[in-house]
C-alpha cells in the first residue's frame, strides 16, 4: 500500500488499487476505539439508463435504493444479524450519485469487514423477498411525503430538472417501484457492483495491510467491464420550471430554492471548483455573511436556514432551505448578495473558518470515509484541502459568484400552511 502523510493534519492515508479495479483507502487512527468501513459503489438514483455488454437497460426510479435494501439478504439470512451478533452496527444509504454500505464497530473489525465485502458482492434475491420489501419501502416513501422539508426539497429538484434523472426522489414512487423484480435488481448489481466501480474506505485503529489482504481474499479477482451510463440530455443551466407552491400542515412557510451549477469537473481542478463554490457560498450566505445577518434581523430567516452544493450525474446544483414568512423576498435578497463587493478581511476570515470546518470533519469517521469515497470517484485527493484552499484568491470567488449566482438559474419551491390559502 502507498502511504500519504499529511503532516499539517497530523494524519496519513494508505491507499491501494487492486487488480480487480477496487480502490482502497485506509486512514489509520491510533488510540480510537471505533472503526468505520464504507464500501461504496459509484451508482445512485440518477443511474437509471445504462448499457452493459451491448444490452441497454432502462430501469424505473427507485431501483438503486430498492437494491440497497435487498443487498442485506444472504442465503444464511440477513447480513445484519452477523454484524449485530458482534455488536457492530451496519447500515446503508442511497444518494443520487452513490450507494454506500457501512458499519461501525469497536471490536472484531476484520470479521465485520469480511461480512461487509461478502454481502455487498453477493446478489441473493428471490421473487418473494423482493415483493415483501415493497411494503417497507412503501412506508419509507410515505414518510418522506409527509415530511414537509423533504417534500419541499423534492419539489425543488423537480423544478430544476423536470423529468430528468435528477428530477425525482432516489426512493422512487409507489408506482415506479411496483414493477421492480429480482431480475431488475440482478441486472443492476451486475452492472454497478463490480469492484472496479467501487471504493472501500476505512478509518480507525486498524492495520491497512489487513484491509487490503481481506479485500483481495473476499472479492472477485477479475476486472469486470464497466457499464456505460446515459443520464439523458444535458439538463442545461436553466430550471425546467421556476416556481411551485403547495400547502401542507406546517406552522410557517418552508422554502427550498435551487440554483443550477453545471459540472464541477474532475481531478484536482474538480477539488478547486468545489472548494471555490463552498467558500463563495459561505461568503454569500454563511452565518457571518451580511445578507444572512440582515435577513435574520428582519425576521425573514431563522437559524433553520442552510445551504449546500451537491454534484451528481455530471452536474451540480445548490439548494437553499429554510423557513420564512416571505420566501420570495428572502430569495431575492439572497441572490442580490451576489452583487456586493467582497471585503478582503472578511474573505480571509471565511477561509480560516472553512479550514477549521475541514479539520473538524477529520474526527467524524462518517464524514471522513464518505469524503474519501467522493474524492476517489471525482478523481481528486479530498485531504488536499489546505493547499487547494490556499490558492483561491478573492477574485476567483467573485468571478465564480458572478457567473453562477444569477436569477435565471434559480427556482423556488414553497410549502405554505393550509390556512394561508
Amino acid at each position: 500500500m502507498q502511504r500519504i502523510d499529511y503532516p499539517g493534519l497530523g494524519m496519513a492515508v494508505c491507499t491501494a488499487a487492486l487488480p480487480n479495479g477496487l480502490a482502497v483507502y485506509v486512514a489509520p487512527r491510533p488510540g480510537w476505539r471505533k472503526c468505520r468501513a464504507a464500501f461504496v459503489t459509484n451508482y445512485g438514483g440518477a443511474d437509471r439508463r445504462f448499457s452493459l455488454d451491448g444490452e441497454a437497460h432502462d430501469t424505473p426510479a427507485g431501483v438503486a435504493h430498492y437494491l440497497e435494501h435487498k443487498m442485506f439478504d444472504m442465503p444464511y439470512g440477513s447480513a445484519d444479524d452477523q454484524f449485530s451478533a458482534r455488536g457492530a452496527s451496519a447500515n446503508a444509504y442511497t444518494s443520487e450519485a452513490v450507494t454506500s454500505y457501512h458499519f461501525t464497530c469497536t471490536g472484531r473489525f476484520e470479521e465485520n469487514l469480511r461480512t461487509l465485502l461478502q454481502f455487498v458482492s453477493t446478489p441473493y434475491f428471490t421473487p418473494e423477498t423482493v415483493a415483501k420489501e415493497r411494503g417497507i419501502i412503501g412506508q419509507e416513501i410515505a414518510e418522506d411525503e409527509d415530511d414537509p422539508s423533504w417534500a419541499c426539497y423534492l419539489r425543488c429538484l423537480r423544478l430544476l430538472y423536470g423529468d430528468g434523472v435528477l428530477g425525482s426522489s432516489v426512493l422512487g414512487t409507489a408506482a415506479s417501484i411496483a414493477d421492480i423484480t429480482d431480475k431488475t435488481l440482478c441486472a443492476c448489481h451486475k452492472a454497478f457492483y463490480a469492484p472496479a466501480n467501487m471504493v472501500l474506505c476505512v478509518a480507525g485503529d486498524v492495520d491497512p495491510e489487513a484491509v487490503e489482504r481481506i479485500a483481495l481474499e473476499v472479492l472477485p479477482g477479475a476486472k469486470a467491464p464497466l457499464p456505460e451510463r446515459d443520464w439523458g440530455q444535458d439538463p442545461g443551466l436553466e430550471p425546467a420550471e421556476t416556481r411551485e407552491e403547495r400547502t401542507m400542515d406546517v406552522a410557517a412557510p418552508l422554502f427550498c430554492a435551487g440554483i443550477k451549477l453545471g459540472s464541477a469537473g474532475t481531478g484536482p481542478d474538480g477539488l478547486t471548483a468545489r472548494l471555490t463554490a463552498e467558500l463563495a457560498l459561505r461568503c454569500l450566505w454563511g452565518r457571518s455573511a451580511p445578507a444572512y445577518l440582515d435577513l435574520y434581523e428582519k425576521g425573514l430567516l431563522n437559524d433553520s436556514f442552510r445551504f449546500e452544493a451537491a454534484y451528481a450525474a455530471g452536474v451540480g446544483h445548490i439548494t437553499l432551505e429554510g423557513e420564512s414568512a416571505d420566501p420570495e423576498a428572502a430569495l431575492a435578497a439572497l441572490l442580490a448578495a451576489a452583487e456586493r463587493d467582497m471585503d478582503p478581511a472578511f474573505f480571509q476570515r471565511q477561509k480560516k473558518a472553512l479550514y477549521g470546518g475541514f479539520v473538524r470533519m477529520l474526527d467524524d469517521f462518517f464524514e471522513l470515509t464518505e469524503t474519501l469515497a467522493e474524492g476517489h470517484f471525482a478523481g481528486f485527493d479530498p485531504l488536499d484541502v489546505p493547499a487547494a484552499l490556499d490558492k483561491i484568491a478573492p477574485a476567483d470567488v467573485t468571478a465564480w459568484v458572478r457567473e453562477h449566482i444569477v436569477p435565471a438559474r434559480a427556482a423556488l419551491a414553497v410549502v405554505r400552511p393550509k390556512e394561508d390559502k
Partner: protein
Amino acid sequence: MQRTRKELFPGVFLTCLRTDKFRTGLLSLHLVTQLTAGTASQNALIPSVLRRGTVSAPDMAALAARLDGLYGARIEPSVRKLGELQCVGFTADFVEVLGQDQLGAVASLLGEMLLAPNTRGGLLLPGYVEGEKQKLIEDIRARMNDRAEYAQLRLVELMCPGEDYAVDALGTEEEARSVGYVALTRHYRALLASAPIEIFYCGAADPAAVASAMTDALAALPRGELDGDIGTDIRMNTVEEAPRVFTEELDVGQGKLAVGYRLGEAMEEPDMAALRVMDALFGGVWPSKLTANVRERLSLCYYVYSELDLMKGIMTVSSGIDPADYEKALAEIGRQLQAVKDGDITEGEMNVARAAVSTRMLALTDDAAALEKFWLGQDLLGLDYGPEELAALAEDVTAADVAKAAAGVACDAVYFLHGGEEEDAED
C-alpha cells in the same frame, strides 16, 4: 482519557476529560434549573438573546467575525431537557491542532456572552429579546414539521399531566409570547445567581489550564443562594389502570404511533446496565424484537424503535405505520413487550443486545459531543462511572436481569397521529 471534576465557585462544577485523540476541543456551560410551566420559555430564550451580542462584540456580525477569526470556532445556544431539569447555556467547539490558545479565547468569549451581554441601562436590548422571542415561537410552532418527534412530544404532554415532565424544553407559544425584556432581564439575573452550573471540557488541554481559563472567564459571576430544590420526580405507576389512548389528526398519509410506558419498580434501585440492555433487546437497537417482528416479519413499518429516559423512568416506542395497521402494530408491540417480561428471550437476542449496548458505550468515547451529553446526565444523577464501566456491566447482564428490569413496565398512554378519514382530494 482522564476525568477530573472540580468546584470552581459555589455550585459551579467543571468536568474535564483530557485526551489527545481529537483535533477539536469541546467546551460547554449549562445553567441547571427546574423544568416548569411558566419559566421554560423564559429560560430557553436566555442563551439565544445572550448570543446576539456582548459588551465587546455588540452584534451578531461582530461575534461572527470574532469566531471566524478563531478558525470557525462555534459557540451555540443550548437548551436541553434532562428528566425534569432544564439545562440552558452554550456549547462551543474549536480547532486545537494549530498550537494556538483557542481555549483561552473561546472560554473568555463564552464567559462574556454569559455575564456581559449587550445591554442598555442594565436591561437586555428590547430588539434582541423581541427578535429571539419571535424565533422561539417559530421553533415551537415548527415542532409539528417533524411528524415523528411531534408525536413523541404530544405523547409525553398528554401522558404526564401535572408532572413537570410534560413541559417541553422550549415551553409553549403562549408563555413565549408573554415574555418582555424587563422581566427577562430580571429572570436572567436571578438565574445566574441561583442556578447550579455545569461546565464540561473535552480536549487536549490540561485540566488546571481549563479551570484557570474558566475561573477567569466567570470571575464576575454573581452567586446568591443556590437553588438546591431541583430534581426529577419518578412516578412509579400509571395514571389510570388501563392505558389512555389519544388520537389527533394532521394532514399526513403515514400514521405516527407513539406509546409511553412507566418503568415501574425497576426505578426503585435502577440497574442502569440491565435497563439499557432490556431497552436494546426490546426495540432500542437494530435488530431488536420490535424490528424483527413489527418491521421484518409483518412488514408494518419502515421504522420502529424504543427509547429510555432513565432520569424520569419512562420508555417510549415510536413507529410510522399505515393507519389501517394501527391495531395490528399496537398489538404486536404489546406482544413483544410481554415476551421480554416473560423471559421469552433467546441467547442470540441477548448477545445482540449486550453487544449493542457495549459497542454504543465504547464508541461514545470517540465522540466529544456524545461524551458531553453522557457526563452531563451522569453528573446530574450523581453517578460517577463512565461509558467503559457501563459497557463492561452490560456484558454481564443476563436474560433474567432483563426480564426483571421489564417486570414492572406498564403502558400508560398511546398516542396516534393520523390523516383522519378519507381526505377530500382538493389540493
